[in-house]
């Protein structure tokens, strides 16, 4: 079974973001970028499926600017066999990303597609579900366990308050939650080898998809600053403040 895994280049999750002075967006100049953490989990799951003999080939795909090839090379170093880069400098919203991925799915015919549940930049949590709808496939979102059983896929999902298990027909779309696995680190020899693995570059036009959106980003602001409060001197004072001043207990 071929597994397609989608990855996104985002700001590193440890970086404190800054809003641009003109409030047009977040400032990404000279900021450390990395693979979205949920996408790392997606790559890890695909590679583990291959190590278990369930997957025969792992194909990594990304949509984004030239520099996003770094994240594809990371996926290749972690164990993906080849990569596809849909190159565009445009801002790609979830719906357009899902349309592009649906075309890649049509061309590649994977048995399983794994994506992160959300990217930590726009926090949309949409692309996997949209891809599933466009490709006419079932979805197992927020997965904490994925088991292939013949032509079915059992996905355990993290839902509010607990876990839900669903059985899906294959091919299917899975989006990863935090507990699915702990991603490995790439080893130096694998990073070297990854440089020689095949990486195809396509444009949205090659796939016949227009990257447009009816959403306009009007403004980006910093959230209201939380101002530090006071230090209390004792537990008694804390309990008193919570009861009588904040009135929350």
């Amino acid at each position, binding site marked *: 079974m071929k597994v397609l895994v989608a990855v996104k280049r985002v700001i590193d999750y440890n970086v404190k973001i800054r809003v641009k002075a003109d409030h047009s967006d977040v400032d990404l100049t000279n900021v450390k970028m990395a693979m979205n953490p949920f996408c790392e989990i997606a790559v890890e799951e695909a590679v583990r499926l291959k190590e278990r003999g369930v997957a025969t080939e792992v194909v990594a795909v990304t949509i984004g600017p030239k520099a996003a090839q770094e994240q594809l090379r990371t996926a290749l170093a972690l164990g993906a066999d080849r990569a596809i880069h849909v190159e565009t400098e445009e801002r790609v919203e979830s719906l357009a990303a899902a349309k592009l991925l649906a075309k890649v799915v049509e061309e590649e015919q994977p048995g399983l597609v794994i994506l992160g549940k959300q990217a930590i930049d726009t926090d949309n949590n949409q692309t996997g579900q949209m891809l599933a*709808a466009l490709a006419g496939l079932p979805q197992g979102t927020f997965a904490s366990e994925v088991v292939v059983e013949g032509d079915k896929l059992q996905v355990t999902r993290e839902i509010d308050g607990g876990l839900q298990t669903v059985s899906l027909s294959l091919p299917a779309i899975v989006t990863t939650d935090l507990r699915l696995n702990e991603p490995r680190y790439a080893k130096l020899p694998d990073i070297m080898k990854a440089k020689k693995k095949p990486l195809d570059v396509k444009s949205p036009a090659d796939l016949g998809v227009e990257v447009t959106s009816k959403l306009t980003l009007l403004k980006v602001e910093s959230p209201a600053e939380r101002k530090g409060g006071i230090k209390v001197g004792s537990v008694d004072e804390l309990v008193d403040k919570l009861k009588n001043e904040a009135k929350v207990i």
Partner: protein
Amino acid sequence: MSILVLAEHHDGQLAGATAHVVAAAKAIGGDIDVLVAGENVGAVAEAAAKLDGVSKVRVADNAVYAHQLAEPMGALLAELADGYSHVLAAATTTGKNVLPRVAALKDVSQLSEIVEVVDADTFKRPIYAGNAIATVQSADSLKVITVRSTGFDAVGEGNSAAIESVDTVVENRQSAFVKQELAQSDRPELAAAKVVISGGRGMGSGENFKLLDGIADKLGAAIGASRAAVDAGFVPNDMQVGQTGKIVAPELYIAVGISGAIQHLAGMKDSKVIVAINKDEEAPIFQVADYGLVGDLFEILPELESKL
């Protein structure tokens, strides 16, 4: 304008999140219909009809909608969406699972987790884990939106809206429910709790998290943890509050032995009142805390428990 709100329900009961979504719909303005889809959901529909501002409740009661699987729910909503200007759902795991399918089937974008309605086309939503707030305008004829409950005060329950049934039945051969295991805790869920008490690396061990139990019991609190505590193996991943864990905004958040990394702050800084207990008075958590108490948590926690 007319708005369709997807009701959130579990175990035959309307979930509280729905009243917050109806509040967001009221802020947009227009007629508000609520869709209750599931199996044996009569009681849910009756509860939804009481919500202020609702014109009518539409009920799709069929086995295919049991457990609200994404595939049939997406197809149902896509069919019912025609004629509405907005489709809204709570940004819960159900809403997040279903709504993007609806948007894709209708070839429109989705706005996720809005926290404010500017006007009927324009909304504010947090990005970068709440470290920035984006104002986004949609030119789509149908707006598909998930609503973060903490952004809108719930509507009241003085209404008696009409209830009508929807006979649309879709097929689903792609997915099937297998089982559900809901946490058997007497404690509230992290994301919905009014009070959250979280421990960090300063707790020292998983065993020491028991020190939080008594306080959580007395306050009816959920127990969370920082990523550092999870990474140290003290507690499981599902307790993690932070950018890559759960985002919480309770009335009261108590951070114990948590230094206050950006990662963690992103998950809790919208809490109404924050208390920090830490031995390091320079810890960044104190910069966001309303009440800080510097000291040894192993002395403070038992004392706090006894005085609540």
